């Protein structure tokens, strides 16, 4: 089996061979080259320019006609977004009124469902930059982490009053320090069970052979952190960064799950029953036709201590949901509707291997991708063709059966765009409008 680091090794060898063909000298610079190029007579240049223009217009008309025969991609038929549309990164809404979003430069909070926003960016000491990691337990209590300084340090701050004031917490670091030759430190996400007990993940690299991934725990709200030890393997990120996804989640002080990747770069779901000190592989249920094949999945989401959901994307492009009713000890496939979701091109796994965003909570289950939304509010799954929602959705969540939010992009390539927007629905996902700042 070819692993990712095999590819990296081959690449490094290839680049070394390329480098050998170029001696270590300054690049040859001949500024007069361009000036000495023979220029064509202006009549020929004018004729050539005209011919190119006619050719381009003809090609544009041709492709326009040809495109009319193809099925429209929802994202291309959307009207332009308002200029003040809120560009966002990670987000979370606790209710129809309270939520936060991380914009490229600021941490914003709303108490009226996104109509008005307040900048609660903590003082991270880095002008023009806000935060790497944000976690809010509720509308008042939250933690922010930011990487900075030389050597790199992961600074943390905490608020107990909805961002009005911030209190510095302990700086996070790898317990054993960075190994020689590995200077990078990647901040991982926080996850808190209550105002005191929480965990943070820190790693020093995602591709280095010397990488370490460590789980830190706090019992005093982030004032101090202690290492619970190394995590098995490295976190599975699927092309995302640690600040965009959370590969770890706890449902009580002892029980939690961690999404790692094994030596063959397959996703492996680990479970701990001792607060993160030891981890074992979690057995999950996948369709028999996909047994032994590579599937993508998210962390399990629990709606109470016993009932949890786990979205799984087998390699056939479908999405199935596993459920547990015993606190995650055993998982079975939800066969109420099977599969729940089927990806269609150009959003199939052949072109885009991310899991279709799924949400479980507040009495709503939802899976969305490519202009196709499946929602279950307790009366069975319903297929919805949403109006106004771009085809690419990074994140979706509902605060009740009617009101929901989605982080979307106007790019055709999931995760590739810097233009991510917050959209809102008030009719159960049927129509979506951009949230403005």
């Amino acid at each position: 089996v070819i692993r990712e680091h095999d590819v990296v090794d081959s690449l490094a060898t290839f680049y070394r061979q390329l480098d050998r063909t170029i001696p270590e000298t300054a690049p040859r610079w001949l500024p007069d080259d361009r000036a000495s190029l023979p220029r064509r007579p202006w009549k020929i240049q004018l004729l050539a320019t005209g011919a190119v223009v006619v050719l381009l217009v003809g090609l544009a008309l041709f492709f326009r006609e040809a495109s009319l025969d193809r099925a429209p991609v929802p994202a291309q038929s959307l009207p332009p977004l308002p200029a003040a549309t809120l560009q966002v990164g990670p987000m979370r809404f606790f209710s129809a009124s309270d939520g936060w979003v991380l914009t490229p430069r600021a941490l914003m909070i709303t108490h009226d469902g996104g109509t008005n926003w307040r900048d609660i960016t903590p003082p991270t000491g880095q002008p023009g930059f806000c935060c790497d990691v944000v976690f809010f337990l509720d509308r008042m209590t939250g933690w922010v982490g930011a990487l900075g300084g030389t050597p790199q340090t992961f600074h943390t701050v905490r608020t107990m009053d909805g961002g009005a004031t911030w209190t510095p917490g302990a700086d996070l670091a790898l317990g054993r320090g960075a190994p020689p030759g590995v200077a990078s430190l990647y901040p991982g996400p926080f996850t808190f069970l209550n105002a005191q007990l929480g965990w943070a993940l820190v790693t020093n690299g995602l591709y280095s052979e010397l990488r370490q991934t460590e789980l830190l725990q706090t019992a005093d709200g982030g004032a101090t952190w202690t290492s619970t030890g190394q995590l098995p393997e490295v976190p599975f990120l699927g092309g995302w960064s640690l600040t965009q996804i959370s590969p770890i989640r706890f449902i009580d002080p002892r029980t939690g799950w961690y999404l790692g990747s094994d030596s063959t770069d397959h996703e492996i779901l680990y479970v701990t029953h001792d607060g993160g000190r030891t981890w074992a592989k979690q057995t999950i249920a996948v369709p028999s036709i996909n047994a032994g094949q590579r599937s993508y999945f998210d962390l399990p989401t629990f709606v109470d201590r016993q009932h949890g959901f786990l979205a799984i994307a087998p390699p056939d492009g479908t999405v199935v949901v596993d459920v547990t009713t015993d606190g995650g000890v055993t998982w079975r496939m939800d066969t109420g509707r099977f599969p729940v979701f089927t990806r269609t091109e150009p959003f199939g796994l052949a072109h885009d291997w991310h899991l279709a965003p799924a949400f479980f909570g507040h009495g709503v289950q939802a899976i969305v991708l490519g202009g196709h939304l499946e929602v279950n509010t307790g009366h069975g799954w319903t297929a919805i063709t949403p109006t106004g929602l771009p085809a690419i959705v990074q994140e979706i969540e509902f605060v009740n059966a009617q009101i929901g939010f989605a982080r979307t992009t106007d790019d055709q390539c999931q995760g590739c765009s810097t233009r991510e927007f917050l959209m809102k629905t008030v009719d159960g996902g049927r129509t979506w409008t951009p949230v403005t700042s």
Partner: protein
Amino acid sequence: MLRAGYAITLDLEVARENTNEAFLRLWERRDKLASHPDPKAWLMRVAVNLAISHRRWMFGRLRHHPIPVRPDPEDLALLRIQSGTMREALLTLKPRERAVLALRYQQDLAFAQIALLLGCPEATVRTWCHRALETLRTQMGGVQNGTPLLEEAR
């Protein structure tokens, strides 16, 4: 800079032309860049952007600089590299993905540095990098009988 350009375009002649073009632009803007905080970074950014969009310069290159084919050892070694499977695999990637791989694994830049150079978020760079590696790995897996990808290039 030339090595980075070569690793992105996989064409030494194009890389040389891009390097020259980058220095030419530096020379043309030398007055404005005198107060630039990091002219080397500016130069590298121009060179990388030129390498990513080198097709725009291809017509000029073919018109003015036909590729010389000389049977000397250096060119033969170059041809072996250029006909290698890794090169073919890299050419299936988008230019920006090749740029990220070259800057990461040839230039040994951190993702944050690459993000600054390309003017995009670090998370986006990571996505491109992971996607490119995934594509290469898929192609490597497709090589029959486990033949090392670089065998033809050696």
